[in-house]
Structure formats: C-alpha cells, structure tokens
C-alpha cells in the first residue's frame, strides 16, 4: 500500500561562506562553513502530503532545493521512484525531471514579467517536447481553467493579475508537464488568508484529481496541520521530530515541537495555558554543541550539551531528544 516515491537518506548540505581568498589571506581567517542541513532522513509515499516545518535557518528551503536538483547535496542521497538523483544532465535525468515540479513562495518573482502567461505555462511543455503547435495552446487553456482562470488569460502578462491569481498561474505551469510530485516551498505565505484558503483548497482538489504527491514546506503550523499526512519538524538543519499529521498536534514529543505549538496564536480563544517561549534561534554559522536546541530547552540535561541525540521511535513517529531516550530507557 504505502509505496515510497521519494526517499531522502542522510542528506546534508554545507555552504562555504568564507570571505574571498585575498581577504582571507590578508586577514588571516580560516575558511568558514555553514551547515544548513545535516543528516536528514525521510520518505514520502505516493499520493501523500509530507510537510517540513521549521523557522528561519531550519534548512527547509535548502532541502526543497536539493530535492528538485537546484542545489547538489554535500552528503547523502535522494532516491526518486527507485532512481538515485545525481548530476544535472543526461537523458535519464531529463526523464526524471519531467516527473517532479516546484511551486514557489513569491508569486511576484516566480513568473517572468516579460513573458505572456501562455508562454510561461507552456515552457515545461516545450522543454520536454510533450506537445506541438495548436495542441500546446489548447493544453494551456485547459490548465488555466483547471486552476480557476480562463483560457483567454494566456494572452495577458503577469502584472495584470493579483497575487492569488499569479500563484494559480504558477500552479498551472507546475502541472503542465504532468508531474507526479510537486515540491511546494511556502506556497501561500505571501498571500492573504482568504486567498490562501483558495489556493490550499485548489491544491487539495488537484491532489485528489491527479493523484499528486506533495512535499509541503512551511513555517505555519496551522497550514501544515490542514494539509499534511505526515510532518517533519526541523530545527537548525536537523529533523527533530516526525509524526503522523494530526497526531503531532495531539501529542508532540520533542520539546521544540511543543514550544512551536505553544507559540501559535490562539485564535479559538480557548484560553489554554501555554509555556512562554524562551530565547531565539542561534546563529547557524556557530550552532550550539550537542543538541542544538539545548540553550532554549526546558528539559535540558548535561548530556544535551555534548552529544547529538539519537533518533528514537515514539508512539506517533520518531524524535531526536535525549530526554525522550532517557524516558524510553527507564
């Protein structure tokens, strides 16, 4: 039943953020690296929505970029439908590329302002040679109607549309190569809530109709809860907890997840008691040793300051926390 479509194994990415060579020599500095993603494992099954949630510096966008091949990983590997993704060219890679797509955060930057909407949507069709001639125009019209716009809109330029309409155009472009898997990088965080609702509903409808699989990246826990079947929580480049969708919100295991949940404004005015959030995210260039969450953690112990916590199974998924390991041992 659960057939894995995307497997991410031991994924890591380091960025060289050193100053230029000449400055380093003159100022006697060493090379500097930023570890954006470290040792991340997860599997996405066909037809499900897997969400990665985290704050700034969590590495969620870096993972998205590596999954679609915009950035090469420095360690680990990504397996798409049994094929290891490596390199950027070659016929097999080209065939693979047709099967995944990406939707971006900022609909004002994701559409080329000099292109007509029709040309934008048709680019993947041309790139993969899927259709020719008037068939392309028809398909573009069809796609525009699928996302709730009209076929005549193909003649217009992006600036003639609102943010929500532009995001629909971006979705139409993503669908045009008939992909199975779409990486959605904060697809609604630049939109107003009522528009967000339209886009989220559309994305779910499309998933049901076309059997799509989503990797959904977001910082918004309420949106993630609404969309995801399974959720991975990232903190400073590491996966700290993974759980089945709604279960995460009933019983969060990792103290960071609990803190995140407590930080979400209480719209229901339920008056639930919440632990005040402490501190800020440390600078990822120089993360704390051991468990990188330990300076903000209410459960901090000596071993958290030295050793990276192992991943252990929880009732709802898995988590990486010394306190949980200790509780499991007892």
């Amino acid at each position: 039943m659960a057939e894995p479509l995307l497997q991410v194994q031991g994924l890591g990415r380091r960025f060289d953020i050193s100053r230029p060579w000449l400055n380093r020599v003159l100022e006697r500095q060493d090379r500097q690296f930023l570890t954006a993603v470290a040792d991340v494992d997860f599997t996405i099954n066909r037809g499900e929505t897997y969400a990665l949630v985290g704050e700034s510096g969590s590495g969620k966008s870096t993972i998205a970029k590596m999954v679609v091949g915009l950035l090469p990983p420095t360690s680990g590997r990504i397996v798409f439908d049994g094929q290891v993704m490596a390199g950027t060219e070659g016929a097999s890679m080209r065939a693979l590329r047709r099967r995944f797509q990406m939707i971006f955060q900022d609909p004002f930057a994701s559409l080329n302002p000099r292109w007509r909407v029709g040309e934008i949507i048709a680019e993947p069709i041309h790139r993969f040679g899927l259709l020719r001639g008037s068939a392309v125009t028809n398909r573009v019209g069809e796609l525009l109607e699928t996302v709730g716009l009209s076929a005549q809109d193909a003649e217009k330029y992006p600036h003639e549309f609102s943010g929500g309409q532009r995001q629909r155009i971006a979705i139409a472009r993503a669908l045009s190569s008939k992909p199975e898997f779409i990486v959605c990088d904060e697809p609604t965080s630049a939109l107003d809530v009522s528009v967000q609702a339209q886009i989220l509903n559309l994305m779910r409808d499309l998933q049901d109709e076309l059997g799509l699989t989503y990797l959904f990246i977001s910082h918004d826990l309420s949106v993630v809860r609404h969309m995801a079947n399974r959720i991975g929580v990232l903190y400073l480049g590491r996966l700290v907890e993974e759980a089945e969708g709604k279960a995460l919100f009933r019983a969060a295991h990792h103290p960071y997840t609990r803190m995140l949940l407590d930080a979400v404004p209480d719209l229901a005015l339920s008056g639930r008691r919440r632990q005040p959030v402490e501190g800020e995210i440390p600078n990822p260039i120089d993360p704390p040793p051991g468990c990188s969450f330990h300076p903000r953690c209410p459960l901090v112990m000596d071993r958290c300051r030295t050793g990276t916590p192992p991943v252990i199974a929880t009732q709802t998924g898995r988590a990486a926390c010394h306190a949980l390991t200790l509780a499991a041992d007892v």
Partner: protein
Amino acid sequence: MSAPLLSVRDLIVEFPTRRGTLRALDGLSFDIAPGEVLGMVGESGAGKSLTGAAIIGLLEPPGRIAGGEIRLRSERIDTLSPDAMRRIRGKRIGMVFQDPLTSLNPLYTVARQLTETIRTHAPVSEAEARKRAVALLDRVGIPAAARRIDDYPHHFSGGMRQRVVIALALCAEPELVIADEPTTALDVSVQAQIIDLIKEICAERGASVLLITHDMGVIAETADRVAVLYAGRLAEIGPVREVITNAAHPYTRGLMGSIPTLTQETDRLVQIPGAMPRLTAIPQGCAFNPRCREVMDRCRTDRPEALTTGEGRQVACWLHADDAQEAARG
C-alpha cells in the same frame, strides 16, 4: 465611556493618479479609548497601513487626506503643520514598523538613537537620558542592556532589533503607539514574545495601541477590540471575542472560516469567491456585494452605514439593519 484618546471620523484618503482619483480610505470612523489596544485587520490593499500613516501624518505623496478629521485627545491633528506634526510623532504617538531597519538608523549606535529621542522630548541631561535608555532596553528584554546599548542595530538579531524599536517608540512616553505589522517579519517563536511584550509594556505605561496586522491570531492574542477593513471601508468593529466567535459581517465570517487552526477539524477551508476589488473598480453599494453569499437587492445600490448593534459594536451590513434599530430602541 470615557473620552476617546484618538478619534477618527469619516476619514477619506485619496491618491490622484493619471487615470483619476483613487479613494483608498472611504469614510472610516473609529475611536481608541485610553489604555485600549485596538486591532486593525484586513487584506493587502484594504487600507490598514494607510490608516496608520494618515494618523501620524506620514502619507506618501501624492496620497492625501481628502476629508474627515482625526483628533488626539479632542485636538485636531490632521490639519497640523508638518512641523507641529513632527513634534507629536515620537512624543505623543510612537511607531513600530514591520521592518525594524526602517525605524533604526544603521549608522548610529542604539544608545545615541535612544538618548537623542529622549532628550528631544524631555529636558534631561545626557547621563540621565542614557540611564533611562538602559532601563528601557532592560525592560524590553535585551540581555546585558548596559553593555549592548553601545552596539549598532546590525549587531542585533531580528527579534532583538524589534525590541529596540519598541524601546525607541516608548522612550518619550507616548499616549498612543501605532504598530504596523510588528511581528510579520519574525519567526513564530519570536513573534509570540514580541506580542506579549507590546501588550505588557503598553498596559504598564497606560499607552493605547493601534495594532495593524493581517494576522487574526495576533489580534486574538493582543487586542481588546478589532476593526475589520474591506476595500478602504470599515466592515465591522467590536470586542475581539465577539468578532472572532460571532462575526456579524459576512466578510468577517468568511475571513475567519478561511483561516486554518490548530484545533478545528475541517476538510475544506471556507472560501470567499473572487478577490477584493481594485481601488479602480469598487462596486456600487456595499463594496463586498459581488462576493457576498447573503447579498440582497439593497446591497447593490445603497452603501451600508456603520450600524451600531451593541456596546462598542458596529457593522456596515444591511443584514443587521433590524438589530441596529432594536439596539437603538433598547
């Protein structure tokens, strides 16, 4: 009810453009009581930031106040000279913006900016001003304030910078603080801290707050009353709990339903059809009528007044014409 601290009546803000004059705010009226936190929500283009800018006299030209009046403690401030307005800004009305960097001068230390502001508005010595500044930074939660006061803005993290801005807004002991999307640029966990801080510190000093945001959650956590704007007009105003749990205007109801929450189980989010009209094409009658599920004939021709339906509660919707009459009689 005591005399309002800020009173806005029939405020009209217009932008002359080459294709005619756009009315960005159209007949907006509301009061803020002393010590009250008034939330103002609306989608982009609804006019919430313009309201803040109009109050503090910082409308970007060619925008101008074309009608109505703004009173601070019953003194008209919309007709003041730019010089007189400058004295009120900072002294009697403090400001916190979304991007802390627009409020802080990157070339000066935090100490210099704080002491200068304190000394512009109060006759104190340099040493006294510095003492006050350190106390204020300490109050807004900057660790080791006495040392960090001599740092430049870029030495602070985003959350800490916003704390500095809050200190700067409060250092002249203003009666009103206008906070325009103060937490939008911040991470979820930091956002919660800043909301709590604004709420606490203004209550402590008896300052009223106009909290402008697109995030209903932030309003729910912070505000006493909330005003909902739509297309430059007031849709609804009332106590936060009432508006959230029992919204009267169909737009507010749609808006509330479109927000995914951590507690409710919904398969589909409520969707308001269409999009907010552009300022060039505001429909006749009620601006919301083409998107409204409960639209009546009258809505297409007559613009609804803000009808008082209860204590501090107004709704601009014909559905409530009867309630309003009842409230007037009772």
